[in-house]
């Protein structure tokens, strides 16, 4: 079999040295570049398949980049405060539920919930993280699984709901930044992560609760 690999991290392609590689400076998670743009995706595939004509191992660079400046945040409305007796994060989760369900109806549960936390248990999961932010040791807070996996389910809920609430298809990473910086649940997650780090928990336990070094 002949193989062609796409890749968005040039150093990894060069280190691995596959038979044929097309280096595409696209955001991580989007190897074909642009969602909902068949013409763009076909151009990438055309460049990839052209590598089959090479006479020896080759790495080519695709001529279009999709940069991410790290600043852009998805413009996405959040539901107004409804129940003042609820923690803001829990009130927000409830307010987003219709948007989440519409998005799952439209797109399927492609990135939503269900890795560790089922939809019906979402508030319980966030409540556990709230406890951590309030000083309860993370092992005693009732986090319902590996913290990074629970965090992915919560992030998946929010980023799925955002697909229905934002006017435009989100650029890469803008939804993640919106979740972590603009939402109450994102702030709880970040605080819980920091509290776990400060408590001396092993790094893999808290580090992968969010992307990167944040």
């Amino acid at each position, binding site marked *: *079999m*002949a*193989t*062609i*690999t*796409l890749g*968005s*991290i*040039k*150093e*990894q392609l060069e*280190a691995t*040295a*596959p*038979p044929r590689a097309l280096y595409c400076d696209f955001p*991580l*998670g*989007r*190897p*074909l*570049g*642009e*969602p*909902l743009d*068949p013409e763009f*995706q*076909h151009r990438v*595939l055309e460049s*990839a*398949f052209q590598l*089959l004509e090479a006479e020896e*191992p080759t790495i080519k660079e695709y001529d279009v980049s999709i*940069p*991410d400046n*790290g600043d852009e945040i998805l413009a996405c409305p959040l539901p107004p405060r409804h129940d003042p007796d609820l923690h803001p994060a829990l009130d927000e989760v409830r307010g987003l539920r219709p948007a989440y369900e519409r*998005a799952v109806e439209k*797109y*399927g*549960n*492609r*990135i939503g919930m*269900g890795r560790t936390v089922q939809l019906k248990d979402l508030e319980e999961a966030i409540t556990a993280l709230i406890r951590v932010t309030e000083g309860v040791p993370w092992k005693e807070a009732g986090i319902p699984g590996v913290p990074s*996996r629970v*965090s*992915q389910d919560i*992030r*998946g809920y929010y*980023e799925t709901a955002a*697909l229905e609430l934002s006017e435009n*298809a*989100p650029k*890469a*990473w803008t*939804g993640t*930044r919106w979740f972590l910086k603009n939402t109450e649940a994102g702030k709880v997650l970040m605080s819980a992560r920091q509290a776990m780090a400060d408590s001396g928990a092993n790094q893999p336990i808290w580090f*992968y609760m*969010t*992307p*990167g070094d*944040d």
Partner: protein
Amino acid sequence: MADSDIKAMTAQIPGVDFKETSFTRPLPLNEATVAIVTSAALHHPGDEEFTMLDIGYRVLESSRHDYVLRHWSPNFDPTGFALDINTVFPIDRLQELADKKIIGKVSDQHLSYAGNQFDLSAIQLDSGPSGAQFLKDQDVDVVLLTPV
């Protein structure tokens, strides 16, 4: 946190040092059966979930588009796939190429691995060759790897 920061963080993760690059000359593309192998940890609902250090693969059917993404790493944007599976798994794009006779055929089955691995030896020695044999048994001629 920018995409470039995460790429910089992961760029130096050691990969497998292959002593030689296996280079196979394929059939003409318009006669070839093409399959996708992705490391996006995709599977069909109801399939065995990928565990944290799962070196195995899952089989993805061309005929079913109900793929879900269950990667263990947080270090990528998942919304492209949420909007359009072809951003990661260009199954519709390949079918369009087959309809135009640019490629011979889209394989009925494809593979997904989970890209969050640190110990690559088990994939190199076990699940990688096993997946390759699976695809060979499907008469696949060309494999497109889409990494996540």
